[in-house]
C-alpha cells in the first residue's frame, strides 16, 4: 500500500518538471525554521540556568537578543518556504489543468457519453487544487515533520531520557488515531462529495425541467427528491462532524496526559536535583515545539492518500486510450470534390447489450460530389448515428466511410472536420456572441485586419440570410449579443437557425444536417429552403429528414431500414415503389386524402386542383391496387 501510494504519486513527476528544486529548497527552508524552533528552548535554558540563577543581569541582553534573532530568522525562513513554492506549485496545477482539458477535448464523443460533465469538472478543479496544495504543503511538511520529530525526540531524550520517553510513548497513539481517522474521514468526505453531486443534479434538473414540473404541478415531487438527497447529505456531514469531534478529543487528551505526567516527573526530578529549573523550562518549550509535528503526522499521511486518490482520478482520464485518434501518417485531400461514401458500415454503441444486433448493419451509400441526399428512416433507426460517423464523432465498428475515396480515418480529424460541417438536431450554442457562434467553423476569419473583417461580415450576413436568422440583428446588441447558457435565452427555432447558419458559414465540401428545420414554422421553413437550395447546388449534403418538405431539398433519398440502406432514389420513385418509405413519410392527411380519393362519393372539402400532382397519383394507384 505504501509503496503503491509512492508509485502512484510518482506519476506526477513529469508535471512537476523543473519545479522540483524549488520544492526541495522549500523543504530545506521549512526544516531550518523548525530546527530553529527547537534551538530557542535551549537558549531559554541558558537564560534560566545562567543569568536568572546567578542574578547576572548583564548576560540577559545577549541571550534575549539571540532569541529575538532566531525568532526573526524563523519568520523569514517561514516566508521563504511559502514564497518558493507559489510560482512552481500553481504552475504545476495550471499545466495539469491544461493537459487535462486538452486530453478531454481530444477524447471521442463515446467517452463523453459515459462521463457526466460534473465528474470531469471536479477532477479539473478540486482534484487539481488538492494536488497543488499537497505538493506545496502536504508533501513538504510530511518530509520536514518526520525529520523534526526524529531530531526533537533525540533532543528530548538527551535532555532527560525518562521525560523524553514518557512524552514520546504517550504521543504514539495520536499517530495511530490520526491515521485511522483520516482514512474514515476521507471516506466520508468522498461520500459527501458524491451526495452533494447528487444534490446538484437534483437542483440542475429542477431548473432545466422547470416547465415540465410546472406543467404537471410536480414541484412537490421534485422537492421530495431534493429533500431526501439534502437529508442524506446532512446525515453524512453530521457523521463527519462526529469523527472530527472524536479526533479532537484525542488531539487534546493525549498531550494533556503526556504533559501532566511529565510535569509531575519533571518537578520530582528537579526537586531531586537531577534536573535544573532551566532544563525543566527548556523541556516544556521543546515539547511544545515538537507537539505540532507529532499531531500532524496522521493528517499528513492521510493528506498524501487523498492526493493519491486525486492523482488516480486525474490519470483515469489521462491514461484513457483514444480510439478515435489521428493516424500516424495522415493523408491530405487538398480540394475535396465531396464524394462521401459509406462502405459496408457497421456500428454499435459500446454499451449495447449482446441480444441486439448492430445498429448499422452494413450500410452502403454513395453521395456523388455536389449531390444532396436525404436520409429517411424511423426514429431510432440510426440516422443521427450515421451523420456522426462522417465526421468521426464516432468511428465505425466495421466497414469504412470515405471522402473522395480516402478513408476518413486516414485524414487528421482537423482536416476532415474542415471538409465536413454539421448542424445538430439539438443545437448547441456556446456562451459567445452570435457572430462567434456562426463563424465557429471559420477560425481563419477571426483576424483583425480590415480585409478579413469585411469577409467575416459578408460570410456572417450571408449565413444568417440563408438560415433566415435575421432576428439576430434585433437582439439587444445585434450579432454581438451573447447567447448560450450564460447569455440571452433563445427559442428552439432560433437556436436551430443559428446552428444551421453556423454549418452553412463553414463553407465545407460536405454538409451534414440532422433534421435542421424541425423547429421552424411552415413559412420560415419555406424561406430557408429557398435559400438553402442555392448552397446545396454546389455542396455535397447529407440531410436527415422527417418531413416531405425537407426531402424536397434533396436530389435523391436514401431509406434507412433495419440498419441498412434499402432503397435509394428520388422521392417520387420511392413513394411509388417502397411501402416502407410511404409508411415513414406520408402523413395522416395524405392517407385521409387517399381514402377520400378511393371513395369518390365522399365530397372533397378542397378541390382546388393543387393536389393533382403525379406523385400523389402514384400513391393513390398503389393504395387502390
Amino acid at each position, binding site marked *: 500500500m505504501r509503496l503503491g501510494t509512492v508509485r502512484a504519486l510518482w506519476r506526477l513527476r513529469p508535471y512537476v518538471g523543473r519545479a522540483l528544486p524549488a520544492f526541495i529548497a522549500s523543504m530545506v527552508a521549512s526544516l531550518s525554521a523548525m530546527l530553529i524552533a527547537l534551538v530557542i528552548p535551549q537558549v531559554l535554558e541558558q537564560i*534560566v540556568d545562567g543569568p*536568572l540563577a546567578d542574578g547576572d543581569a548583564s548576560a*540577559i541582553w545577549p541571550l534575549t537578543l539571540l532569541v529575538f534573532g532566531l*525568532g526573526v530568522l524563523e*519568520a523569514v525562513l517561514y516566508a521563504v518556504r*511559502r*514564497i518558493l513554492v507559489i510560482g512552481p506549485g500553481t504552475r504545476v496545477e495550471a499545466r495539469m489543468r*491544461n493537459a487535462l*482539458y486538452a486530453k478531454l*477535448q481530444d477524447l471521442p464523443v463515446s467517452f*463523453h457519453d459515459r462521463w457526466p460533465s460534473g465528474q470531469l*469538472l471536479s477532477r*479539473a*478543479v478540486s482534484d487539481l487544487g488538492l494536488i497543488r496544495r499537497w505538493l506545496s504543503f502536504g508533501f513538504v511538511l510530511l518530509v520536514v515533520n518526520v525529520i523534526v520529530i526524529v531530531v526533537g525526540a533525540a533532543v528530548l531524550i538527551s535532555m532527560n531520557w525518562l521525560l523524553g520517553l514518557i512524552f514520546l510513548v504517550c504521543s504514539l497513539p495520536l499517530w495511530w488515531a490520526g491515521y485511522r481517522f483520516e482514512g474514515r474521514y476521507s471516506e466520508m468526505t468522498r461520500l459527501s462529495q458524491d451526495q*452533494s453531486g447528487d444534490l*446538484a443534479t437534483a437542483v*440542475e434538473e*429542477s431548473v*432545466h425541467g422547470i*416547465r*415540465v414540473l410546472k406543467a404537471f404541478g*410536480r*414541484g412537490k415531487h421534485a*422537492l421530495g427528491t431534493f429533500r431526501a438527497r*439534502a437529508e442524506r447529505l*446532512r446525515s453524512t456531514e453530521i457523521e463527519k462532524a462526529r469523527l472530527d469531534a472524536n479526533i*479532537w*478529543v484525542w488531539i*487534546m487528551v493525549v498531550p*494533556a496526559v503526556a*504533559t*501532566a505526567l511529565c*510535569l*509531575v516527573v519533571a*518537578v520530582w526530578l*528537579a*526537586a531531586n536535583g537531577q534536573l535544573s529549573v532551566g532544563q*525543566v523550562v527548556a523541556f*516544556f*518549550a521543546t515539547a511544545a515545539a515538537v507537539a505540532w509535528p507529532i499531531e500532524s503526522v496522521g493528517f499528513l499521511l492521510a493528506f498524501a492518500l487523498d492526493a493519491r486518490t486525486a492523482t488516480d482520478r486525474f490519470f483515469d482520464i489521462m491514461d484513457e486510450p483514444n480510439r478515435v485518434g489521428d493516424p500516424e501518417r495522415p493523408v491530405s485531400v487538398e480540394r475535396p470534390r465531396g464524394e462521401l461514401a459509406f462502405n459496408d458500415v457497421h456500428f454499435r454503441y459500446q*454499451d449495447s447489450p449482446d441480444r441486439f444486433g448492430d445498429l448499422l448493419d452494413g450500410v452502403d451509400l454513395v453521395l456523388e460530389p455536389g449531390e444532396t441526399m436525404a436520409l429517411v428512416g*424511423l*426514429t*431510432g433507426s440510426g440516422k443521427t448515428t450515421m451523420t456522426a460517423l462522417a465526421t468521426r464523432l464516432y468511428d465505425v465498428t466495421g466497414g469504412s466511410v470515405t471522402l473522395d475515396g480516402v478513408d476518413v480515418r486516414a485524414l487528421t*480529424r482537423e482536416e476532415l472536420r474542415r471538409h465536413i460541417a*454539421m448542424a*445538430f438536431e439539438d443545437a448547441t450554442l*456556446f456562451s459567445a456572441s452570435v457572430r462567434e457562434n456562426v463563424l465557429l467553423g471559420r477560425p481563419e476569419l477571426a483576424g483583425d485586419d480590415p480585409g478579413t473583417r469585411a469577409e467575416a461580415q459578408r460570410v456572417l450576413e450571408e449565413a444568417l440570410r440563408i438560415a433566415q436568422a435575421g432576428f439576430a440583428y434585433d437582439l439587444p446588441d445585434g450579432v454581438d449579443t451573447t447567447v448560450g447558457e450564460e447569455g440571452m435565452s433563445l427559442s428552439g427555432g432560433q437556436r436551430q437557425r443559428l446552428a444551421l447558419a453556423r454549418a452553412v458559414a463553414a463553407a465545407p465540401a460536405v454538409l451534414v444536417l440532422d433534421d435542421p428545420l424541425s423547429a421552424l414554422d411552415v*413559412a420560415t*421553413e419555406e424561406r430557408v429552403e429557398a435559400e438553402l437550395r442555392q448552397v446545396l447546388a454546389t455542396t455535397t449534403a447529407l440531410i436527415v429528414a422527417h418531413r*416531405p418538405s425537407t426531402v*424536397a431539398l434533396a436530389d435523391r433519398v436514401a431509406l434507412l431500414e433495419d440498419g441498412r440502406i434499402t432503397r435509394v432514389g428520388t422521392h417520387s420513385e420511392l413513394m411509388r415503389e417502397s411501402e416502407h418509405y410511404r409508411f*415513414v413519410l406520408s402523413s*395522416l*392527411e395524405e*392517407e385521409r386524402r387517399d381514402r377520400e380519393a378511393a371513395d369518390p362519393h365522399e365530397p372533397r*372539402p378542397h378541390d382546388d386542383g*393543387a*393536389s393533382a400532382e403525379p406523385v*400523389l397519383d402514384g400513391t393513390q394507384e398503389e393504395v387502390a391496387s
Partner: protein
Amino acid sequence: MSVYGVQGEERTRYTKAESKQIRTRSLRLLGSLLRPLKARLWLTALAVVVSSAAQAAGPALIAYGIDSGIPALLAQDWFPVAFAGLAYLLSGLAGAFLISIYIRSSARISQAVLIDLRTRVFLHTQKLSLEFHESYTSGRIISRQTSDLDAIRELLDEGLTLLVRGVTYMVFMAGALIIFDPPSALVLLVALVPLGILTRWFQVRSQALFRRSRVASAKLIVQFVETMTGIRAVQAFRKERRNERVFGDLVEDYRDVNAGVLRLFAVFNPGLALIGNTAVAVVLLLGAFRVVDGALGVGVLLAAVMYTKRFFDPMEDMAMFYNGYQSASSALEKISGVLEEEPSVPDPVQPVDLWTADGHVRFDGVEFAYTADRVILPRFDLDLPAGQTVALVGSTGAGKSTLAKLIARFYDPSDGAVTLDGVDLRDLHPKDLRRAIVMVTQEAYLFSGTVADNIALGRPDAPFDEIVRAAKAVGAHEFIESLPNGYDTDVNKRGGRVSAGQRQLISFARAFLANPAVLILDEATSSLDIPSERLVQEGLTKLLADRTAVIIAHRLSTVSIADRVLVMEHGRIVEDGTPDDLIGGTGRFAALHAAWRDSLV
C-alpha cells in the same frame, strides 16, 4: 438603478445606500435562519467558552508546578505538584470533552441552517414564474443553489468554528496573561498595533484579490462545462485549438489570482510569526530582569512566554476565516436577492377547490403585456367550451405560445381573467389547477432515472401497467422495449441516447398518464417522424374525445383532428372557425394550408 431582488447583481460597485440595503437584506435572512436555533447556539457558545478557559489554565498550572511544586517537594510536600499534574490533566480532559460537544453541536447548527436555506431557495425558485427563469437564465439559478450555497457551507463548516474558537482562545490567553503578569500583557497590547496594521493590510488586499478570484474561477468553470456538454459541436467545428487558447488564458488568470492570494498569505503568516516572536523576546527580556530582581517566579515567566506565543496561534486560522467569510457573504447577498424576488404568478391566498373539472376555459377581457409599451396580446375574449379541440395557427411570434401559457398559468394576464369552469385560475388551488390543465412543450425534458420514472411523473401513483398503457397509447412502447433495459433503462443526463423524437414520445406518454381535463400541446410533435406522429394522432383522437385541447403546431397535419382553428397574427386572433370552413374560405388559413400541402410533396 435598483438593487431589489436580482437586479444589479452583476455589478461590482454599489453606492453606500445600495450596499447597506443589500447587507440589511442578507443579515435579515441570516437572522431568520438562526432564530429557530437559539437554544443550541447558546449551548454551543457556552461549550467553546468553557473549553477555552480550561485550555488557558494549562501554562498557569505548569508555572504553579515549577514555582510552588519544586520548593514544596524539597520539603517532602507532594500536594502542590500532584495538584498541578491532576488539574492539568482534568482541564485537558474537560477542554477536550467540551470541544467535541462544540464541534458536534455547531455541525448540527450549520447543517440545520443549510438545509433550511437550501429548501427555501429550492421552493422559491420553483415558485418563481417562467418569465423570471427565462430572463435570469438557468446557469445563474443553478450557481445560486450550488456554488453559492457551497461557499456558505464552507464558512459554516470550517470558518465559523475557526473564528469562534480562535477569538475565545485569544481572549482567554490575553486574559490569563493579564491575571498572571500584567507587564507582559502590556507588551501584548503594544504588539496589537502592528498586528492590527498587518491584518488590515491583509483584509484590504485580499478583498480585491478575492473578487478577482471568484470571477476567474467562475469563468474557468463555465468554459470547462460548456466545452464538455457541447463536445460534439466543439469537435465538429474544430474548436479544440481555439478552446485550448481560451482555456489556457483562463487557467493562467486563475493561477495568477491564486498565486496572488498565496503571496498574501506568504507575507501575512510569517508577519504574524515575526510579531509573535518579537513579542515573546520582549516578554522574555522584561521578565528575565524581573526574575533577577526577584519580582517574578521562573514558572510565571515560562507561563507568560507560552501565553504570548499561543496568543498568535489562531491568527492564521482567522485569516482563512476571513477569506471564507467574504465568499459566503457575497453568496448570501445574491441568494437573498433571489429570495426577495416576488413570484409574478403567486399561489392563491384563499384557494378555491375544483375536484372535478369539465374543461371549460374562458378568456375575459384578457390583455398580456411585459411592460406598458410591449403588449404581446391586446385585449381579447375567447370561449373554449369543454371538450373542444382547438388548433392554434400562426407564424413564429404571433403569440400562440403566450396564449397557451396563460391557460397553463405559466403567466398571469396583465388585465382581465382566465377562468376554468368559471373559476379564475389565480384563485384555483394549485393542485387542482395542475391536475386539470397540463401543458406539453417542445423541449421534452427528461429527468434522470428510468423511462418508467419519467412517464410516471404524469401521475406518480400510477401502477406499472398504466405506464405501459400510456406508452402504448402514444406509440412509444415499441422503442422503449428496444432500449437496453426496456422501461427500466436509465435516461442519463439530457436524455442520453434517446433521440429528440423519442423524448417527445415519452413526454407525451407522461401527459397521457396525467389524464387532465385540459391538455395543451405546444409544438409537442415537432421532432417526431411521421409514423410516430401518426400514432400519436391516433392516440390523441381517442384521448381528446372528451377533453378540452389546445394544440399549437407548425405542421398543419394536426389540424385534421381539431374541431376549431384559431389563426393568430401579431397577438390577435384573426380567424376562427372549423378547419373545413377555413380551408374552404379565402383567408390566411386557406393560404397557409395550401402552402403546407405543397410542402408535403
